[in-house]
């Protein structure tokens, strides 16, 4: 099969046009119903701020979600929206995108919605590289059902359903996305708003599936889950901001960095023993994802938590392939003619 390169789509070419949309055009008339202090608010705000930059007319946005606190997101976006059923948003979104490839489709999901009941749909959407922007709100807990452990909860965690501590090994969403051949993978933090907004925008501009994990605080059932590195004062030392083509540095004065020994990454101090040249250079667009994979394995507190874009490569997009195949068939065979079709095969006439 011939795979055509990525095409300029209606969306992309319209980026040039200023649609004069701004944030409030994307605020719906529905009262926001998350708990006061929930990290979801910040993600919503960044999204509403970011989408006008995409040059896409408002009527072409569709937000699709499953079930969970996070999945109420579509109600608050003044766009088309579909609050579907638990875990299945990627499937619904795939249908939407295939049916109308000109739509800009977002999927909003949670760690339970996307990785527990919905893990398989997530993987399959990613491997097909459907042009969806998947945002996974990871609060490491089931919020809506009031506090059971999720697939990202730490082992040993005491929750409503594990009073003696969870015995389930957590799953790493980015590892799973990469294993599913993701073309765009990123991570952001709810309260690091500027970086979050930028990351969402980069994801939105990727054609193909983009997968963004956002660490999101659930202040009711899992308060402070990420505080150790997300608090403003700790970020410089505990968070590694990935930048394409740049050496991996962090620390208040960028005095630390990540170097590699064989396959083992290590934290080094720049100075006597190590210079900037010894550090790993980030490269988002390696065709093989091994580096991105390795970065997902940097676990706190041994390592700073990497955020930003881990991987960003171009590959044929699913709805494009689907459309191209139809066009190719039509070019080769002519457009379908119903009368002919009905009359095809072995026919005979009775008079």
């Amino acid at each position: 099969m011939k795979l055509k390169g990525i095409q300029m789509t209606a969306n992309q070419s319209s980026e040039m046009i200023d649609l004069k949309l701004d944030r409030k055009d994307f605020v719906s008339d529905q009262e926001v119903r998350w708990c006061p202090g929930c990290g979801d608010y910040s993600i919503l705000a960044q999204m509403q701020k970011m989408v006008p930059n995409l040059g896409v007319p408002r009527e072409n946005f569709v937000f699709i979600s499953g079930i969970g606190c996070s999945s109420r997101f579509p109600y608050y976006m003044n766009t088309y929206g579909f609050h579907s059923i638990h875990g299945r948003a990627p499937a619904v979104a795939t249908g939407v995108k295939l049916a109308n490839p000109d739509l800009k489709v977002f999927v909003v999901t949670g760690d339970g919605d996307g990785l527990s009941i919905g893990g398989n749909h997530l993987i399959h959407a990613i491997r097909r590289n459907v042009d969806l922007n998947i945002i996974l709100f990871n609060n490491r807990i089931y919020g809506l059902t009031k506090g059971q452990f999720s697939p990202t909860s730490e082992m040993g965690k005491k929750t409503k359903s594990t009073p003696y501590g969870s015995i389930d090994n957590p799953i790493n969403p980015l590892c799973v996305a990469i294993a599913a051949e993701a073309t765009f993978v990123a991570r952001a933090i709810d309260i690091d708003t500027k970086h979050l907004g930028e990351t969402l925008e980069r994801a939105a501009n990727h054609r193909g599936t983009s997968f963004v994990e956002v660490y999101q605080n659930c202040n009711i059932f899992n308060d402070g889950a990420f505080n150790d590195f997300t608090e403003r004062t700790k970020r410089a030392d505990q968070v590694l901001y990935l930048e394409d083509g740049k050496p991996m540095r962090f620390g208040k004065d960028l005095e630390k960095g990540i170097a590699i020994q064989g396959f083992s990454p290590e934290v080094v101090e720049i100075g006597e023993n190590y210079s900037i040249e010894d550090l790993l250079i980030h490269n988002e667009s390696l065709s093989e994802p091994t580096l991105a994979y390795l970065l997902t394995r940097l676990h706190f507190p041994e390592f700073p938590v990497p955020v930003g874009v881990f991987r960003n490569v171009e590959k044929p997009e699913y709805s494009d392939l689907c459309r191209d195949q139809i066009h190719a068939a039509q070019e080769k065979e002519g457009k379908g003619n119903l009368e002919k079709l009905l009359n095809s095969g072995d026919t005979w006439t009775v008079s």
Partner: protein
Amino acid sequence: MSTETELSTPTMETQKPTVEIQSAVIRFAGDSGDGMQLTGTQFTNTTAVFGNDISTLPDFPAEIRAPAGSLPGVSGFQINFGSQEIRTPGDRPDVLVAMNPAALKVNLADLVEGGTVIVNEDSFQASNLDKAGYESNPLDDGSLEGYRVIRIPLTTLTLNAIKDTGLDRKQGQRCKNFFALGVVYWMYDRPLDHTLNWIQSKFGRNPAVLEANTAALKHGFNYAETTEIFTTHYSIRKASLAPGKYRNLTGNQAIALGAVTAMEKSGRELFYGSYPITPASEILQELSRYKKFGVKTFQAEDEIAAIGAALGASFAGGIGLTGTSGPGVALKGEFIGLAVMTELPLVIVNIQRGGPSTGLPTKTEQSDLFQAIYGRNGECPVPVIAACSPGDCFWSVLEAFRIAMKYMTPVMLLSDGYLANGSEPWRIPSLEDLPDLSFPNATDQDTFQPYARDEKTLSRPWAIPGTPGLEHRIGGLEKQHLTGNVSYDPQNHDNMVRLRAKKVAGIAQDIPPTEIYGDPEGDALIVGWGGTRGAITSATEQLRAKGLAVSSIHIRHINPLPPDLTDIFSRFKKVFVAEINLGQLWTYLRATLLLDSISINQVRGKPFMIQEIMKKVEEQL
């Protein structure tokens, strides 16, 4: 046609006498590897093009290929064809072609008394007899007394026939089904050219195989003409079908054609989301060939994603279709509920098979009626319709889409394994005869409310993403009347539950009067639905021929039911409900109409025999 062959094409003017008959039932049976489905299909198409009415029943094993020669490995194909209306594949074959002992063992009991068995003599050696569980050779031990047995050394003769083609023994043997087909063509006075053309187009690129199959077919025909075994052959006149152009269609092909037609007549893009499962996979396979029509097919990761994507496509303005069989529907229930709540057009096709659980995956059954009507959480009304013949699958899928779009609702369409794989001549409609499919398209920004309703249909407007000014959000939580916002208001919920029920019940207004086969009143009425129509109608016909005051009706709209049923039932002393389950329609009619009726049922993974129905009715009259 191959020019290398030196055989002359047999002409229809043979030397032996011809006896005219009205109809015949033939069953081809052999090992899964023997090509019986192909043989049957060739006979069917030849016969259809010849102009007989036909009905077919393929019957294949659940295993891909059970051990050669074993009983579970037997594959069969039955065809009933005649000069008058043919409604079923026939209760029992007149002729059984048995390619090996296992095929004989499995099928003999079905043969009519005095029927003809054509066997491949070569295959009745010890090892095969053993695999079939025969202790002695049935060809020799007298157990076939009462039948007309025609022993043909099919393997040997085929190998002789193809010896000049360069194929080796193993490849050559594979042509023996064409030899057998040639024999049967002779017996029923059929022309060879349809099959010869088919061989040509199929094997054109492989001259040796082309030649071998051609030779086997012709040699088979000539063998029958020449040898002394056959004394007469039979001719069956063309059937007097309604005038028009015909083709032969299986139920699954008909569904695919109907879906493409729905797309063309509605102007909305067809999206088929599915996950392979017997006996529904052919719909996906057919539709994936219609790229030039712009049909989009999506083989999803499972049945849940398949319906989810179809519903997404409907939300985005396409017409979503998803097909599966019972276990797949079991997985789709939650999404059907979402479609009910979001009131989007969607058609779910269930090609029923033997259940429960994995059950008998390749066999037919009508036991998913309860699931179709009732199988969801909450008050979750879904229109249900059922197709009643292979060709009717075309019309049913159109009707399903008509309802789905007019009423903005998911619709369940029931077919079954028998309809799906069986075939019949189908009169090709002209485009003007086809209904236009309309839908409540939202366009006006100022008046748009996502859950405002059309007064007559109670359907909400379809506002399609990409339309400026109609941005709105839907989902599975209860909706506020008119606005469609999430609402936990108790009275609103009660209203909405009743509104949704009323909308679906209102579809009854579109249902045409029920056709009664036979008189409008009498001693007995046989009621059926789905793939049993042929058998029920034939049983009714034969009971009437015996002088009994029996009529029958066939229900296509199951939810809601046609409004005239109570009236019809009241005109008969007894009502029988015949179906291939333990009485699901029977139960449903009791529930909905308080109808006291008699259930005729069997659950053997097979269509009804006409005789079965007749017997049950006669017993109670």
